[in-house]
């Protein structure tokens, strides 16, 4: 029988993941919920940006009855061994390979016509277990593994999500304000991922390197709109025009996205560049 003092010691010796806050066995080298290395220090810049954890090649982590393995480090692949009873959804063009026996279906999405007009994915595919499916995108970058705890809401740049577990609700959020739509570089909508009673797994692909910063209430920063990757739904996003004067040659303006806390903001270093006005 485990004595209370012994149990307390074991509890103390558990490792907390700095990225997803998951609790792991003290012997674990990587987080069982998000794959982040547990033997490395948090990498945070002086300005407060935290690097998304660099997932080691062949890192494995778990969600429900399924396992995800990360393969490669230039354009990493997420290979999911989908367990019986589990399902994952994604945009179909990110599938790299699959077992022929994995059944495929389509997620029913609300607001289909709005999505088509906004250039958002109209059809989201679902792969059901058991079997293996692998996913990757088309450019150098990082996988950002975001285990979503119950009651979380996350807004994600269009076409940036790689896959999500079926217990996460997928909807879209209209970006408010005409200036945001015209100059924000995000299009009209963002993907919104919401968990209710259950936890879920969301994996994004960011181009280049990915950094995250947690803003305090009222704290704001300006980011290049093409670099925006994700944010908590509590973070407000507005467009701020920056006037650039060139003396007798007139001037131009550039738009930046102002993010106002509280909440997390994720950016990618290899961003889509939007020309100045």
């Amino acid at each position, binding site marked *: 029988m485990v004595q209370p003092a012994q149990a307390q010691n074991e509890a103390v010796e558990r490792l907390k993941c700095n990225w997803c806050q998951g609790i792991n066995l003290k012997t674990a080298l990587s987080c069982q919920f998000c794959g982040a290395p547990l033997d490395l220090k948090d990498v945070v810049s002086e300005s407060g940006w935290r690097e998304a954890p660099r997932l080691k090649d062949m890192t494995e982590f778990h969600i429900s009855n399924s396992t995800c393995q990360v393969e*490669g480090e*230039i354009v990493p692949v997420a*290979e999911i061994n989908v367990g019986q009873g589990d399902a994952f959804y994604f945009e179909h063009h990110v599938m790299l390979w699959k077992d022929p026996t994995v059944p495929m279906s389509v997620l029913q999405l609300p607001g289909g016509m709005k999505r088509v007009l906004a250039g958002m994915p109209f059809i989201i595919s679902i792969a059901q277990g058991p079997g293996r499916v692998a996913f990757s995108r088309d450019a150098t970058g990082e996988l950002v593994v975001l285990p979503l705890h119950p009651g979380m809401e996350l807004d994600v740049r269009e076409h940036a999500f790689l896959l999500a577990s079926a217990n996460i609700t997928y909807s879209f959020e209209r970006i408010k304000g005409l200036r945001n739509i015209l100059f924000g570089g995000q299009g009209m909508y963002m993907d919104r991922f919401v968990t209710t009673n259950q936890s879920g797994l969301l994996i994004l692909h960011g181009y280049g390197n990915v950094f995250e910063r947690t803003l305090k209430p009222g704290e704001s920063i300006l980011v290049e709109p093409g670099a925006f990757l994700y944010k908590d739904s509590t973070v407000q996003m507005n467009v701020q025009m920056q006037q650039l004067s060139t003396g007798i040659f007139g001037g131009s303006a550039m738009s930046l996205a102002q993010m106002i806390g509280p909440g997390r903001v994720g950016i990618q270093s290899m961003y889509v560049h939007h020309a100045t006005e």
Partner: protein
Amino acid sequence: MSAAPSAPAAGRSYTCNWCGAVSDGTSLSCPSCGATINVKEIVTPTGWIEMPGRKDMAKLQIGKSSCQIEGLYVPAADFNLSPEDGVYFAHHVLLWKENSVAISMMSMKGAWKRAFAGMPIFMTQAKGPGHIAFSRDLPGELLALPLQPGQAVDVREHFLLVATDQVDYGWTNTNIWFNTKNGDETETHYPLGMFLDRFSASKMPGLLLLHASGNVFVRQLAPGQSILIKPTALIFKDPTVSMQLHFEHPNSGWNLWMSYIQRYLWLRVTGPGRIAIQSAFEPVEDNGQTITNHSPATRQQW
């Protein structure tokens, strides 16, 4: 020129788990393909072998010539050619060269068909002595494929970086196509291109260097074993691996007004033999029109 790696030292022998070459294992990397020596072979549970870690500045010995792989994001292949050796390549991959290296044009067989298929009809040839280096314009990996006499490999077009003179360059039909019809117009699509490059070694061993985008994975398929891959992810396959189209229709539960979203286009590859895929790949083109005819294919409606 002989591409045989250095003879194993007495009492020592190391078999490269990437190319199978035998060396004495005293260097940091395989002298035949540059793979790290003693690297623990990394295999996913499904059997995909990730290309072995190749250290920066890994050196490959090819007879009296050598090749050093420099850099990790967009690696360059730096050849030191001996006077009797040569390589060929598409001219746009040339990074730099020394004045002593002579370059000339090498014409290809079947020029009209190659031009029609968008394949290069001329290759550039370089003769030693001297240094010449090659790289492509995308982050990715270099694959070194040593070819033994009688061995051949089928490569998707535009993946070749450079090959030694001992490697014969031919081509083969993919026989992967489908027709769509829009009104009176019929369009033929080739998800893999019309042709595959076929590289082979006849009498002498040779070296083939390919460049792929992203990470590279290789899998050995057993006889009759098949998997579905995105056509644009294929890098190379053994000639023994057969290919056909596979149309997959997800269960939507309702009728969609755009037909293409009800189908996924796959390439079904069936063993025996090796296949290699890249993790960064372009979307497969599908205009969404009704398919009126196609090469041999399988179909799955969920």
